């Protein structure tokens, strides 16, 4: 065993508590950083992997077969910049009834392909087989898993088209179609467009994709290109939810790293300062300066390495549930969202390296220290610091134990600054979480601030094997309004529509009735009021490249309706837009509502209302809408966990500083106790020593916390918080945050303060 290792092991044994603190801090930080990196990796890597495996189409283009012949389209595959291409495939849109394979009514884009393989968009078959004969269809299954073989053989009855039998389920990362049939079947369905699938040599940006497509289609007749879907849009949709979590995860990760560096620097500098005599002894024994530094580096590296390994284990354990939340409801296709290995590798290599660098700077003092000076340190009186302030404190009206404590940080200004920095980071974290919680709670309460219960009423459907309502949806609406307790009724119809310029179909919600609660979610523009008006959430607008004021064409049942986006909602499905019943009437005059939201009058009995609905029409299913919000719960939950972690880490920083101070001042403490300082006074003095850094840390930690909150709420892509939800700061709350700094300081100081109070005077003074 080398002398360095022997001395390091002895140093670790002598500093069991500090060793534990370093290990715990590194564990917490590693967990946080691993989660942030894991989320970052999951936001793009699984999509890229699955997309590459399927040789996904960079652009899915639809052409007008009346303008561009199949031969002309085939020639586009040989144009410069085209790496590979597939097609042309016949394409049409089927109008599906409600509840087909549990999906909503509306448009279904169908493509005729002879086989799922090819140079581009190699469709992965999940169940059954490929459609080879007329009357057969393979349905795209966009979410994780498979529907199971039990659904094979289901007969689909699109409106105005012959029935089709489901022979397979498949998934395409390119989302090139909602379903596929054989080319023969497609020919019978009279394709309206021709689909081409392209992979380009340069496809990293939207601009490169546009250039690639323009070059490829340069020789085609004007106006032959109908729609073009970029894979980058799909990628954005894939990571939209994860991206929403990333800003705050990253911020917490950075905060965790900063706290770790501070704590490690603090512990090592403390160990070097308090171990001057030990350094002198080592050097006098013949340790070289480098060996002395190695002793200190090893001393912190051992717990850091253990903490890092445990942090990686716990991070990986937590990452699974986190990713499940971040990707819930996302059409992941064949992409397998899981915890990547590289974040673990980065943490395992990076964290110990970071710790070593943080330790190296203070350890360099041990390198420079001469043996004679080091051995003399401790026996000679120190030249005090901040003497004038201490003198003034001594003359103040404060109890002497308090004034003595308040003067202590001045004796070790650098250490006190490091401690204060840990408190600042702790308060920043608490501020960020407080702000996020306030914002998320306000967001969760949006539209239901009156606290009135809301009832969701679903109309039965024969497709689901349930009795359909006896009359029209107008009759159902009147019924719901007439029942005791009803205050407002919002009627909704959900359908899938095609959007001009886009290959994929989108959901459309059409409303009538009382829409005031929905209008309150508008953050830009206004809620749609008449025919041809729509609103959408930020994710939809971003992913479809439209803004408030833009006009889009909505297609349903072979009819088109121009729709103007008149408002941006605070949130919303990336694949859904909201419109009025008048717009639906233009597209499908026979459409019926499927869902009603009834807001009861304040004080009304929700259970009685639900019973009354059931009694009035057994085909209606009524249930109380829960007011909790999954996103709110997730963000607040994770932020709270991180806050607890980082607050504990910050408190541990204070703990370490106070512990060092207590050890350094053992002689003073012994003397003070010998002249009559009571244990309570010792505790008060020790706790007072961190009160001022606590207050200052509280004051300094609030502004970066407010800035961090703003950064997070401004960069959640899937939600556009209104200004009212971002302005969450009030004076009492800010005052409470200053108290958080003091609380962190006191929590950290309490244990060493109690140990100082219990210090055996005889032992301390005998050591002299």
């Amino acid at each position: 065993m080398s002398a360095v290792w022997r001395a390091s092991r002895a140093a670790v044994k002598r500093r069991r508590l500090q060793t534990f603190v370093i290990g715990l801090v590194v564990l917490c930080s590693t967990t946080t950083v691993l989660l942030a990196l894991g989320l970052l990796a999951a936001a793009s890597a699984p999509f890229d992997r699955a997309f590459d495996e399927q040789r996904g189409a960079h652009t899915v283009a639809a052409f007008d077969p009346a303008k561009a012949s199949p031969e002309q389209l085939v020639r586009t595959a040989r144009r410069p910049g085209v790496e590979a291409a597939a097609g042309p495939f016949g394409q049409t849109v089927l109008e599906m009834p409600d509840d087909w394979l549990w999906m909503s009514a509306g448009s279904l884009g169908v493509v005729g392909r002879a086989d799922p393989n090819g140079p581009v968009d190699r469709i992965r078959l999940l169940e059954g087989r490929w459609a080879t004969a007329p009357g057969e269809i393979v349905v795209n299954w966009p979410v994780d898993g498979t529907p199971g073989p039990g659904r094979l053989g289901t007969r689909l009855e699109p409106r105005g088209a012959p029935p089709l039998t489901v022979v397979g389920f498949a998934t395409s990362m390119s989302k090139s179609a909602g379903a596929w049939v054989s080319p023969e079947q497609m020919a019978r369905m009279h394709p309206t467009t021709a689909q081409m699938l392209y992979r380009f040599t340069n496809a990293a940006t939207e601009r490169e994709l546009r250039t690639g497509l323009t070059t490829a289609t340069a020789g085609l007749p004007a106006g032959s290109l109908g729609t073009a879907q970029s894979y980058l849009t799909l990628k954005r949709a894939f990571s939209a939810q994860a991206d929403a979590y990333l800003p705050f995860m990253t911020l917490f990760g950075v905060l965790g790293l900063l706290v770790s560096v501070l704590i490690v620097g603090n512990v090592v500098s403390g160990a070097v300062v308090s171990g001057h005599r030990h350094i002198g002894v080592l050097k006098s024994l013949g340790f070289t300066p480098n060996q002395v530094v190695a002793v200190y580096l090893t001393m912190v590296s051992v717990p850091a390495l253990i903490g890092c390994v445990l942090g990686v284990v716990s991070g990986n354990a937590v990452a699974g549930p986190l990713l499940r939340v971040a990707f819930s409801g996302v059409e992941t296709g064949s992409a397998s969202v899981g915890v990547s290995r590289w974040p673990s590798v980065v943490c395992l290599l990076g964290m110990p390296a970071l710790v070593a660098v943080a330790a190296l700077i203070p350890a360099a003092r041990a390198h420079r220290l001469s043996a004679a000076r080091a051995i003399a340190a401790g026996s000679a009186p120190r030249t005090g610091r901040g003497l004038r302030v201490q003198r003034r404190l001594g003359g103040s009206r404060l109890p002497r134990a308090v004034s003595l404590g308040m003067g202590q940080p001045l004796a070790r200004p650098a250490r006190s600054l490091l401690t204060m920095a840990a408190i600042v980071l702790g308060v920043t974290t608490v501020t960020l979480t407080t702000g996020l919680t306030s914002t998320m709670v306000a967001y969760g309460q949006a539209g239901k601030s009156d606290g009135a219960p809301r009832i969701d009423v679903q109309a039965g459907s024969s497709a689901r094997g349930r009795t359909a309502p006896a009359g029209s949806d107008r009759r159902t609406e009147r019924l719901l309004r007439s029942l005791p307790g009803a205050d407002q009724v919002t009627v909704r119809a959900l359908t899938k529509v095609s959007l001009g310029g886009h290959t994929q179909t989108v959901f459309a919600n059409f409303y009538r009735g009382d829409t005031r609660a929905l209008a309150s979610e508008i953050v830009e523009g206004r809620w749609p009021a008449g025919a041809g008006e729509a609103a959408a959430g930020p994710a939809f607008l971003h992913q479809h490249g439209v803004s408030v004021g833009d006009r889009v064409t909505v297609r349903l049942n072979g009819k088109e309706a121009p729709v103007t986006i008149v408002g941006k909602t605070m949130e919303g499905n990336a694949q859904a837009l909201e419109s009025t019943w008048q717009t639906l009437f233009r597209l499908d005059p026979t459409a019926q509502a499927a869902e009603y939201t009834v807001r009861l009058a304040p004080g009304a009995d929700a259970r009685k209302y639900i019973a009354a609905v059931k009694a009035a029409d057994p085909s209606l299913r009524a249930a109380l809408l829960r007011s909790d919000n999954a996103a709110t719960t997730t963000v607040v939950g994770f932020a709270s966990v991180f806050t607890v972690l980082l607050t504990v880490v910050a408190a541990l920083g204070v703990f370490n500083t106070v512990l060092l101070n207590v050890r350094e001042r053992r002689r003073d403490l012994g003397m003070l106790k010998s002249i009559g300082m009571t244990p309570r006074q010792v505790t008060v003095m020790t706790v007072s020593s961190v009160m001022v850094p606590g207050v200052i840390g509280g004051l300094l930690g609030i502004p970066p916390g407010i800035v961090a909150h703003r950064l997070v709420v401004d960069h959640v892509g899937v939600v556009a918080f209104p200004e009212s939800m971002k302005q969450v700061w009030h004076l009492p709350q800010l005052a409470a945050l200053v108290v958080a700094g003091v609380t962190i300081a006191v929590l950290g100081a309490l244990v060493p303060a109690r140990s100082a109070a219990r210090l055996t005077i005889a032992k301390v003074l005998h050591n002299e």
Partner: protein
Amino acid sequence: MTTDSDSSRQVVVRLEGVHKDYGDAKALDGVSLEIRAGEAVAVMGPSGCGKSTLLNMVAGLDRPTSGTVRVHGEDLGRLNETGLALFRRRHVGMIFQFFNLIDDLPALDNVALAAQLTGTSARQARRRALELLDELGIAGRKDTYPAALSGGERQRVAVARALMNRPALLLADEPTGALDSRSGEQVMDLLIDLNQIGQTLLIVTHDPHLATRCASRLIEVADGRVARESTLEPTA
């Protein structure tokens, strides 16, 4: 040996059958002794004989394994930590070999500290501290920090601090052990002066010269027991 007049004085310290064990090691083995008001008692003995442990027992810094320690009528074994602190504050002043001054405070504030802990205002405490420093001849160094004081001056400051709360008993642990001979003599003179004005002294020392100069009674300790007690004739 005590005279009639000695025996009429109040007993300040009474130890009865005091044992103190540190694991298997016996630091004190059935020590019994009395110190009366105004006495100056020196405790001597070889290293590790138990004399510092004896001092710690009397100061309430350590608790006996068995036996009774009474100081100024107070049974120290029945006091909790806070009680012991209050006892030390009221009845005991201590002087250490290495002075144990707080480096961050000037001489005046080091002395005033003992009174301030009792709740005395800073102004009153400083006034009393200045009087003591003046009596000990170092008032001119009141604003000097310990690092800039000589060894003798530091010990005078320590003595002033020990006297701050007018203790019934002044305990000195090797008070001249870290001083040069001239400073040592000055501190001895100081202790003699204090005893002459009625201050009870208990001095633990290796130095026979200090014992014979300052004490009227000598207790010799060996292997944790009182080996011999004798009366000393003043040499000064």
